[in-house]
């Protein structure tokens, strides 16, 4: 039964990926703008444009280009960037070295802030601690991350000069590479942490009202013991759901944050590629992002099943 559940989930996964590839291709193809025109500018002559289109393979029918790209993806070949003229995989790989550590740092920060704060607020419901935390999270949800990023730069990079204002020296530069990611990770994490703190708090409060917690209390456990032993684990289910959703927000957030901090990450790559109509890069990166979001959601489903064995039976 468990295997069947897994297979059904997997089939859904494959179907979603196939549909996504078609949608991404069609959307990109209908986008107004000609990559050759962007490359050659306003003085280009028609024969030069035609020569470049042929060089880029844009003179072939759409269906053939789609088949070419999709089959390439299956083989792990992401194609060649139209503007940079290097393999997309190489570009993505370079960029992931920035975006992935950034996202991991941001998620770690989010969890480190949200879980204890949420638990603290729930454990001391209606106390001064609780209302302070709630007020701060409200602020955190309301403030856009790019504004927050600018404030961080103003304080930590311009006034105090503790951390760089932006840019990324590359991992070969050692600790300064790590330092370059601190402010962006904070800027990305705080709004997410604010949301997650609220979810954690309300979820814990809900479970604290459940019968089994009352039973535990009746057996003589203190409120915090009952919270730790019985409520916490149950309260994590909605937190995991939100965290899975937040992953996609985080990826979207990196587009903004990477631009504010001039970080050579995936978000900035996509932003530049869309502007230059580097269709091959945009398509392949979108597929990679969509794929990873679909896979993360799949993993969240698996995580539910681990946290709550009853879910394993449902499809």
């Amino acid at each position, binding site marked *: 039964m468990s295997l069947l559940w897994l297979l059904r989930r997997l089939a859904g996964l494959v179907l979603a990926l196939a549909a996504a590839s078609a949608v991404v291709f069609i959307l990109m193809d209908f*986008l*107004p*703008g*000609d990559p050759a*025109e*962007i*490359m*050659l*500018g*306003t*003085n*280009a*002559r028609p*024969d*030069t444009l035609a*020569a*470049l289109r*042929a*060089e880029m393979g844009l003179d072939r029918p759409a269906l053939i280009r789609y088949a070419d790209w999709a089959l390439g993806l299956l083989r792990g070949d992401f194609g060649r960037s139209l*503007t*940079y*003229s*290097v393999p997309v995989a190489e*570009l993505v790989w*370079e*960029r992931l070295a920035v975006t992935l550590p950034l996202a991991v740092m941001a998620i770690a920060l989010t969890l480190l802030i949200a879980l204890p704060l949420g638990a603290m607020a729930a454990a001391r419901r209606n106390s001064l601690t609780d209302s302070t935390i709630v007020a701060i999270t409200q602020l955190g949800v309301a403030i856009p991350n790019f504004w927050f990023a*600018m404030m961080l*730069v*103003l304080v930590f*990079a*311009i006034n105090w*000069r503790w951390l*760089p*204002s*932006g*840019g*990324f020296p*590359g*991992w*070969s*530069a*050692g*600790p*300064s590479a790590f330092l370059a990611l601190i402010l962006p990770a904070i800027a990305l994490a705080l709004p997410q942490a604010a949301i997650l703190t609220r979810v954690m708090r309300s979820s814990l409060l809900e479970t604290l009202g459940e019968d089994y917690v009352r039973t535990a209390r009746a057996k003589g456990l203190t409120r915090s013991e009952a919270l730790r032993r019985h409520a916490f684990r149950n309260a994590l289910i909605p937190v995991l759901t939100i965290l899975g959703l937040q992953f996609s927000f985080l990826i979207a957030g990196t587009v903004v944050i990477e*631009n*504010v*901090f*001039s*970080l*050579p*990450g995936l978000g*900035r*790559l996509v932003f*530049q590629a869309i*502007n*230059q*109509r*580097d269709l091959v890069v945009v398509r392949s990166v979108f597929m990679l992002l969509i794929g990873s979001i679909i896979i993360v959601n799949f993993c969240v489903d698996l995580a539910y099943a681990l946290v709550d064995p009853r879910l394993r039976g449902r499809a």
Partner: protein
Amino acid sequence: MIRLLLTKACLAFALFAVLAAGSPSMAAPRTDLNVGMRLEPPHLDPTAGAAAAIGEIVYANLFEGLTRMAADGSIKPGLAESWTVSPDGKTYTFTLRKGVTFHDGSPFDASVAKFALDRTRAADSVNPQKGLFEPIETVEVVDPSTLKVTLKRPTGAFLFNLAWPAAVMVAPQSAADNKTKPIGTGPFKLDRWAKGASVDLGRNPNYWGAKPALAKISFKFIGDPTAAYAAMMAGDVDAYPIFPANENIPQFQADKRFTVKIGNTEGKTIVAINNARKPFDDIRVRRALAHGIDRKAVIEGATMGLAKPIGSHYAPQDAGYVDLTGQYPYDPEKAKALLKEAGVSTLKVKLILPPPDYARRSGEIVAAQLKKIGVDAELVPVEWAQWLSDVFRGKNYDLTIISHVEPMDLDIYARDDYYFNYANAEYKALYAELAATSDPEKRKALIEKAQRKLTDDSVNVFMFLLPKTGVWNAKLDGLWENAPLPVNDFTAVRWRD
């Protein structure tokens, strides 16, 4: 693998610590330069892409042409040390420099120069300025240091055209890979391109000419205006040849740590008019637009007052300029009268705005001004790609705001099928005469005539010249104040002690 990385990280850290500890005792002036740029180039081959960012990195620093542009806009010898022109203006004989080698060690001679010029005009050429080389009939190698170029017709701007980034010399064995591994003859060579972050150039030890003072130039791509300001203030960037936000200029001017130079670009910013579309095919309507737009207010509002006004499609610093800014003074009443005379009572138009700040900001002000003369302009912001395909290629527009950055580009008004839809036989004849004239004085007179013709016909509303807002560390010398081409020649840049 992880252990290896850790070891590397430790080594890097140790090195970093040593360097950091060593720096205060170094007394010699710095030889490195961190340059801020708004846009990252798609690649580094100026003979295969029009993006200004390519030339701004590689021109004169990495690649050189037969002739080169000097800071004052004049044409100087480059890889050709001298030349003679035949009396009929059709044959150019270049004497090339000896002992010039490319970064990969291969020699530069007349056969390489022939290859580079022939490549620009080949059938499969993807040179963005292929038109510049169209007048060439034949290129011949006389001997290894003599090159003879024969033109189909006299071309007055030929030596100037050879100084463009798109005309730099490339070698047969490396030309195909120049996009990512540029191999030129310049005083700097490519060290590293961290895509999305920076391009690093290092000194070329085998350079034929005078060694530059700088040993390393790092171009950092910081597009966000706030981030650019932060990077300058924090000292992460030493120079912005063109700072991306005019509103920060007063702050830099007030700060002794920085030099601010407001220079000229060649960017003629205009409200382009679709001359073929009713009612703009009526000269009275186009003149009404010219009277209805207050240049001064647009310059004040859109460029913080830093731009110079223009009255025709020509930059004030270029030879033959004539000031025509007074021809259509701001006069809403006259504009309304002209519209009435043309039988236009209500006019609803779309004003298409590409992404740059100058366009978006000017657009708001222009629309407000047009409202006062009874023209209702709807603002349509578009992406660059869309502007190129809809407005520029498709010619599907009423009005648009755009800066034409090519220097002395009076030729665009003589082109068939250009997006202004001007199509004027008299202007075409005038331009053909100019193109074939080499004598500087005669050229000036013709250039003046061409400017007057464009203004008389009110082809477009000519607004202002984009300023070159240079901001750099006050201890730096040798940066260009003006941009006669979109290039940054760093060969003369040095730090003062």
